[in-house]
């Protein structure tokens, strides 16, 4: 069994392209889709009335830039007008002593948000200035800043997610979990398909004739595809946790246990698929269909909350991806630990055991 297990790694070393590209794909997809909604601030060219001096301009920019979603930078008025006229930017801002002006190309949702952000900043500033004049105290602003950074009372809005609401939606983690699970299914099933390849090439006959037992053969292969799927997912998670600073919560250990259960169920599912197809060509055709539809239905591409069709929701109840996504999100977003996700992971394990039993039987019968 050990020899069989090690053999697969030796073969992987010689032909690492397929598995390597699956891992790379998960990273690329998470990077490109996970970050698009965060950090990509819209830049707003900002010019100032001549009455505002350089120091005040700096502090205006600081205050404006505290708002998320927009990034304000200084430019001169003429340039700002030209850019808007040419359409290189959708809008620009002119700050005056007690008022502001927005120069716009056309109406848009972004414009309304921008207007709101700028207005709020102006109102706050006007209030502070008014109070400042009354108390007439130098250190007033610093005190306010300090007070705001350590507020005595915080109102936090948190709701446990249900299928119908969107609270707690975190695009970053949705993409990280979804894409990694999706691509790992390929890694796992293609690694497992080596067992069918050996049947075709005749090396399996040699193994059968040797003193190695049947169960050792299966264990060798499944062990290999389990480990490689597990390494795939965990290494991608680690990469995004430590290198790209994704906040995956404080229970990384629990995440890993959930991943382990998921990988087991996909190995079992792979076995079921291997047992159900007649040829390797059929398998290669079936794998993308099954993985893509499981990813769609199970909420790996988009949150399951976005699905409203009852039939699809019913199917999602037998797909391990659904429960794994649910468990991973509970741990990472709502800071649950393992005991909080016992139900979904036992369902995943159950699906795994069922598929494994049927799959191995079918595969054996084909011989």
């Amino acid at each position, binding site marked *: 069994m050990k020899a069989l297990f090690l053999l697969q790694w030796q073969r992987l070393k010689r032909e690492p392209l397929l598995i390597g590209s699956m891992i790379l794909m998960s990273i690329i997809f998470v990077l490109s889709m996970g970050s698009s909604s965060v950090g990509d601030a819209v830049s707003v060219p900002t010019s100032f009335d001549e009455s505002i001096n350089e120091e005040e301009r700096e502090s205006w920019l600081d205050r404006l830039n505290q708002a998320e979603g927009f990034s304000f930078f200084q430019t001169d008025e003429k340039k700002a007008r030209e850019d808007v006229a040419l359409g290189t930017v959708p809008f620009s801002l002119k700050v005056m002593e007690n008022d502001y002006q927005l120069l716009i190309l056309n109406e848009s949702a972004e414009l309304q948000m921008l207007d709101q952000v700028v207005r709020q900043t102006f109102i706050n500033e006007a209030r502070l200035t008014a109070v400042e004049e009354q108390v007439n105290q130098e250190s007033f602003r610093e005190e306010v800043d300090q007070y705001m950074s350590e507020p005595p009372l915080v109102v936090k809005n948190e709701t446990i997610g249900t299928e119908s609401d969107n609270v707690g939606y975190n695009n970053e983690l949705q993409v990280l979990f979804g894409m990694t699970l999706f691509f790992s299914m390929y890694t796992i099933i293609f690694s497992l398909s080596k067992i069918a390849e050996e049947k075709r090439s005749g090396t399996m*006959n040699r193994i059968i004739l040797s*003193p*190695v037992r049947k169960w050792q053969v299966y264990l060798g292969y499944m062990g290999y595809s389990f480990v490689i799927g597990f390494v795939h997912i965990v290494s991608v998670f680690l990469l995004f946790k430590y290198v790209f600073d994704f906040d995956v919560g404080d229970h990384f250990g629990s995440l890993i246990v959930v991943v382990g259960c998921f990988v087991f169920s996909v190995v079992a599912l792979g076995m079921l698929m291997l047992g159900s197809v007649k040829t390797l060509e059929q398998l290669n055709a079936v794998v993308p269909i099954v993985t893509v539809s499981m990813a769609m239905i199970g909420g790996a591409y988009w949150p399951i909350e976005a699905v409203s069709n009852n039939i699809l929701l019913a199917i999602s109840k037998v797909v391990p991806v659904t429960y794994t996504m649910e468990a991973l999100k509970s741990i990472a977003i709502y800071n649950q630990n393992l005991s909080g996700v016992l139900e979904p992971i036992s369902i995943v394990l159950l699906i795994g055991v069922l598929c494994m039993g049927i799959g191995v039987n079918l595969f054996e019968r084909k011989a």
Partner: protein
Amino acid sequence: MLETVDLKKVFKNNVAVNDANLYLDQGESVGLLGPNGAGKSTTISMISSLLVPTSGDVKWHGKSVVKDPKTIRDVLGVVPQDIALYEELSALENLKFFGKIYGLKGKELDTKINEVLEIVGLEERQKELVKTYSGGMKRRINIAVALLHEPEFIIMDEPTVGIDPQSRNYILEMVRQLNEEKGMTVLYTSHYMEEVERLCDRIYIMDHGKIIATGTKDELTSILSSEETILVELDRSYPNLIQALESLDDVLQVTEHDKGIKLIVPKGCRLLGKVFQQAEKEEAQIVSINVQVPTLEDVFLHLTGRKLRD
């Protein structure tokens, strides 16, 4: 030592092997000869316990292989017809893996590997990847793997298909040595008459799933002992001459043979004169004429009315 009893295999509606009975004694070298699709590989798969017969049994020292495959597996080496190796690994890595699954390890494994590499003559290129090997080299490693655990009985399924004459000679010589010097029992299948003639003590001829003849080479050719073959070589082909010869009373069979004609006639029927007469009549130019003792090829032709290879 090995015996098959009314061995039969039916795939859907296709009877691949039909009541085959054959036996091998210890130290014997036995050939299984037959054209494509005769059922040789299927027979071998059943003997080696990889395929369960539809009916009948395989007995190894009297014990049923179908009921207890392990009885034969431990002492058996199989060289499959299609190369069964990991192409992306080197020959050495392949041998290491297959040695390990037979429980060999450490020094013992290394010694065995060197031994079989020497037998197949590939010591120098053992580190190269199998996919970079020539057809002949792949065939040799394919054999080496089957020898690793020192089987007492080796089955070779067309081990020389599609390779150059030099590699082929090497392999044939190797098999002869394994049989004669190491006392290995050999079951060798082929559709090359010469190989089986050269290597095997006894021969089974198989066609359409049935064993149609068996015996030593001499025994088999004596099937034709009451007949002889006349080979007439001509300067070109003369279809009319063939017809004319076919109509002669004593001639049993006439076939076109390269630029000549092959006649099978009863022994001592003094036909040569008539052949010359007919040739003169058709104005055919005889280059040479040859009276032969029958070969296995002729036996096959006689038994089936077909040539072994088309």
